[in-house]
């Protein structure tokens, strides 16, 4: 059974770029993409070493051909511990597909951040 759970004020998310809460014994969070203000719910535990995933940066992943740097157009969450990159929609580690963090729908409404868990 899933419910929308209130995890905190929207102002905090906007200022810090993230908001973390404990829901049902798990630490979950919502991260905000500074580029477009979109919000993403994801478990605050990196499946690699257990780092606080939501404290990482939301940024655009690089691409390119040898010797030339380009931007991929793909927004990712980079774990603050080892820098492994995670897809915000699927929670999949892009460079180690055997690892995945749980993701949850998130939304901001009426000054509050809620998460469907």
């Amino acid at each position, binding site marked *: 059974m899933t419910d929308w759970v209130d995890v905190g004020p929207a102002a905090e998310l906007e200022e810090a770029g993230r908001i973390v809460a404990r829901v049902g014994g798990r630490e979950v969070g919502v991260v905000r993409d500074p580029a477009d203000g979109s919000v993403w719910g994801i478990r605050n535990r990196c499946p690699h070493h257990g780092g606080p995933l939501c404290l990482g940066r939301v940024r655009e*992943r*690089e*691409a*390119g*051909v*040898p*010797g*030339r*740097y*380009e931007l*991929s157009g793909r927004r990712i969450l980079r774990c603050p511990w*080892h*820098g*492994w*990159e995670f897809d915000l929609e699927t929670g999949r*580690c892009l*460079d*180690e597909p055997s690892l995945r963090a749980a993701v949850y729908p998130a939304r901001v409404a009426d000054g509050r951040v809620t998460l469907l868990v």
Partner: protein
Amino acid sequence: MIDCDVHPQIGDADELLAYIEPAQREWFASQVFFGLPGYPWAHPSSWYRQDLETRNGIPGGDAASVARELLDPSGTEIGVLNADDAITVSLMPSPYRAAAFARAHNDWIRERWLDADPRLRGGILVPAQDPSAAAAEIRRVAEDERFVHVVLVGGSERPYGEPRYLPIFEAAAECGLPVAIHSGGEGLGISAPPGGAGPVTFYIEWHTLGSACSIMAHLVSLLVHGTFERLPTLRVLLMEGGIAWLPGILWRLDTNWRGLRSEVPWLDRKPSEAAREHVRFSTQPLEHTDGEDALLFEMLEAAGAPQILCFASDYPHWDFDDPAFMLRRLPEAWREPVLHGNAEAFYGARLGLTRA
């Protein structure tokens, strides 16, 4: 059996000098050993198998010696000649002398060795300090199909993935030739010091670290620069740098790539996957394991063995691997691919086996 690493010695200096262009011949004749950079670290007794040394000559000084001492007794079908001390040509300060010497050495190999024994194949010597000249030499020599790869020396100014070296790899790929990077020369002439911690003291250090570290550096460099993404048909053979370290360095590189890929974002798969696809390793010197061979082979399997391994004897050096000994030491299922099949697939039609 295919032996990827046979070292032709220059038994008669005058014979080689005759292949140097006339305007440079006197310079080469008046230098100590053709002006090639010498080793500050020398083997304490001999670089060679001492049972093969003669009073007046060095072993392996002509095609007949190689046939008598290596090819005939071991039943070797193909032996690939990689320049011996001459591979340090790329470390000479003058690219002009280096180009002349490489050219002469290639012509000497063709006429004095390949013409003398149909089992022999050649590695193309190039002046890597001048990559465009090296590329021109590859294209010139590659017309003779008995030359089956390009030879680069482990000692270098910078690792070979650097874009300055691209013309060499482009020419090789264009000619359908693999590039063999053979350890040696680390710390000589214009190359970087061996080992990465400053100049070493002893030959035992140089031989343990210099050759392994340079081969590791070239492997990692070629992978992270995306050389195989640029040149999808390129194949590379890494020679005489040891192999027990291979699983570890690939695991390490893959781990770093996951966290540091933004630096090399053109790599969209684990670097070890490109290594498995494009890179082969010569067996010699296969590390002695104090009875732990099973462990060694299990680790090497994690890096893609036996498919990635090609037999090499390193005749006539002191640290060579005897073909019969290698046959006994390898796991039974590895023997055919390592001693023959992998090299045949790696070199392809150019090896000439299908034309017989």
